[in-house]
């Protein structure tokens, strides 16, 4: 067992951390959040120039053939800097689906994605699904030359800004049947697509997508029934592992800010970090962080696990730990900062909000604990 990063991986980490430290300070981020667009194409292009947007794609397709560890490194840096640009939806989620697409589509799309010219979003979740990956009510109907889609996709991160959407829809079967699903590539400008954009609680751009008898041509069927559910699961698993890494970055930053504050804030004539009650709280935060870090590594390793049950168990276990550590560290980081932690003018509150929302994506701690509990009875 070896948890050391390779030389290339260390270089990647250093260059990503350095870049975000330079271009993504708290004030720069505030300007991006405050802009009408809600994200920065300029930052996106800089991420492309670093090679991040081509990271998970095959060299032959125009990528850099990075694996789960490389994604983990990038996501941790994203978490630390609270980057709102859509790396997770576009590169991790949609990227996973795109890697499995037909050669012609890959040849057309991967270079554009890697250069930052084309953004993708993964429109899979639905209002009633509550993180059940197989729960898809959106229907696809076979018509001459293609399909017609009808339904509502909810809380699609980057759904309002993406130049293409990857949409799941049901060709066959009951609403929660894993079989019968297919994946389509959709141009949001197509007739019948309505996007209702909004911001998430932590300031990212998102949208609900309404599909009213939208035509998709045959050659934009990304994945037919038979393989679609497995591909949705693979993409979602990658997203869980990526979110775990992002959370570790955010927790690490929250603890670092808190420890710094404990050392510098004085009350009663001493630094408040001299109070043992607060020292112990900070120590508990550190324990929670390291447990989360361990589980983020487990989640990353699990992506290459062939046994589906093992993989699911490891990813759920990681998401439970991340949810709990994130909640504890987020709450305590605010608490130990006092009033300043409650304001939008200081980073720690934003870290707390992001950690809270990470728990709400791809299943919260309770959801994954229930999955693990169900597996015990199976």
């Amino acid at each position, binding site marked *: 067992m070896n948890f050391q990063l390779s030389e290339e991986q260390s270089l990647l980490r250093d260059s990503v951390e350095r870049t975000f430290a330079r271009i993504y300070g708290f004030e720069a981020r505030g300007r991006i959040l405050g802009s009408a667009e809600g994200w920065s194409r300029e930052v996106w292009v800089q991420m492309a120039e670093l090679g991040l947007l081509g990271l998970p794609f095959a060299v032959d397709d125009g990528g850099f053939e990075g694996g789960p560890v490389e994604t983990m490194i990038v996501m941790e840096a994203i978490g630390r800097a609270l980057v709102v640009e859509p790396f997770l939806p576009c590169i991790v989620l949609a990227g996973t689906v795109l890697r499995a697409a037909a050669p012609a589509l890959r040849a057309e799309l991967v270079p554009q994605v890697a250069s930052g010219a084309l953004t993708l979003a993964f429109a899979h979740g639905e209002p009633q699904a509550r993180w059940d990956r197989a729960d898809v009510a959106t229907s696809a109907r076979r018509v001459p030359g293609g399909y017609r889609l009808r339904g509502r996709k909810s809380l699609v991160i980057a759904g309002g800004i993406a130049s293409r959407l990857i949409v799941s829809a049901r060709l066959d079967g009951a609403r929660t049947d894993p079989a019968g699903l297919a994946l389509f590539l959709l141009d949001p400008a197509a007739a019948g697509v309505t996007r209702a954009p909004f911001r998430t609680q932590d300031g990212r751009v998102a*949208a609900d997508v309404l599909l009213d008898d939208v035509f998709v041509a045959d050659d934009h069927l990304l994945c037919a029934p038979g393989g679609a559910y497995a591909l949705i699961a693979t993409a979602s698993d990658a997203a869980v592992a990526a979110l775990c890494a992002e959370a570790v970055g955010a927790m690490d930053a929250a603890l670092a800010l808190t420890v710094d504050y404990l050392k510098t804030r004085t009350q009663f004539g001493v630094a*408040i970090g001299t109070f043992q009650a607060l020292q112990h709280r900070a120590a508990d935060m550190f324990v929670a962080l390291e447990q989360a870090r361990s589980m983020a590594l487990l989640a990353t390793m699990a992506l290459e696990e062939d046994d589906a049950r093992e993989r699911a168990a490891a990813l759920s276990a990681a998401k439970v730990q991340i949810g709990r550590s994130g909640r504890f560290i987020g709450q305590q980081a*605010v*608490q130990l900062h*006092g*009033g300043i932690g409650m304001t939008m003018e200081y980073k720690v509150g*934003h870290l*707390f909000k992001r950690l809270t929302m990470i728990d709400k994506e791809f299943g919260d701690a*309770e959801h994954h*604990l229930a999955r693990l509990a169900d597996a015990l009875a199976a």
Partner: protein
Amino acid sequence: MELGFTDAEIAFRAEVRDFLRASLPDGVRRKMAEGRRLDREETVAWTRTLNARGWAVPHWPVEWGGTGWDPIRQMIFRDEIQQFPAPETVSFGTLMVGPVIYTFGTRAQKERFLPRIARLDDWWCQGFSEPGAGSDLASLKTRAVRDGDTYVVNGQKAWTTLAQHANWIFLLVRTDPVAKKQAGISFLLLDMATPGVSVRPVQTIDGGFEINEVFLEDVRVPAENLVGEENRGWDYAKFLLGNERNGQARVGIAKARLRRVKALAAASLDGAAPRMADPVFRRRLAELEVEVRALEMTQFRVIAAEAGGAEGKPNPASSILKIRGSELQQATAELLMDTLGPAALVAHEGDAPSGYDYARGGAATYFNLRKLSIYGGSNEIQRTIIARSILGL
């Protein structure tokens, strides 16, 4: 020992509830239930409705508009308001500075200020904390220098709640720079329209605006606005903070929030299976209900002891109210947010998509209520009080 309420107390509870049903606008009740902030006008209108009924300041002396209710009736009244849920009056006036004025103020101050607090003609805010004086409040630095029949005040106050609505502020200021900490502090009343006062709103992490910084630059305060004696302000502040503590159990608010959780959990939100079908969820809800009942019983004990005339010496149990009250507010808000599932992600500012109205106020309330374990003496400070004053450690 007589557990339970008398028939007269039960009838009184019904009377309060009937009044709330008849008098509180539906829109305000809905906003309260969803944890949304009221407009200034809504708060003023409601305070005047209460005042017209004679219920704006029930705990005050009858001479100044109080009802003469015993502590148990006062508690029943507060509980009914909270769980309705209806707005409470602006505490900075009715619970904080009002009692300081009628206890320590001059006759002229009482006549001038008290009726205006009860009607909310004056909206008061609290100028205690400073950037460098939080938990260690006595280290405050804002200076007041006597110049003839005025004080000249310079300094900065922080975390001033709803200062943007306020026209008066009560201040702790240092009048004796030489005396040790607590000894040199005075309690001043300041009209915020006075030249040299400026207010900067600070956005909180729930996206709202309720806290402010208040800057004081060569502000001249008439000496007649000094409360009590110069350099005795710390005594009045301790009196004020002691009154604040009993209001912090907020059992009624926790009950109202758990009622909303139950309604949400019983419904099929967006067509998903009702959360109430999940035994783990029901267990978490049941656990919180147990904790709320325990807090409610503790509150009954504190208030019954008060009604029995054991005032003066603080009841050890009263120190629990701030800690458990804030923790349960936070835990119920957390459960409410978790009940919403992924819909908690939606920010309800501006362009929220249709279909998520049920999630309104979910995450924002959770974020906002983190303040409860910070302000009014952080929970760490409260634990130190228990350890030192009660356990003698």
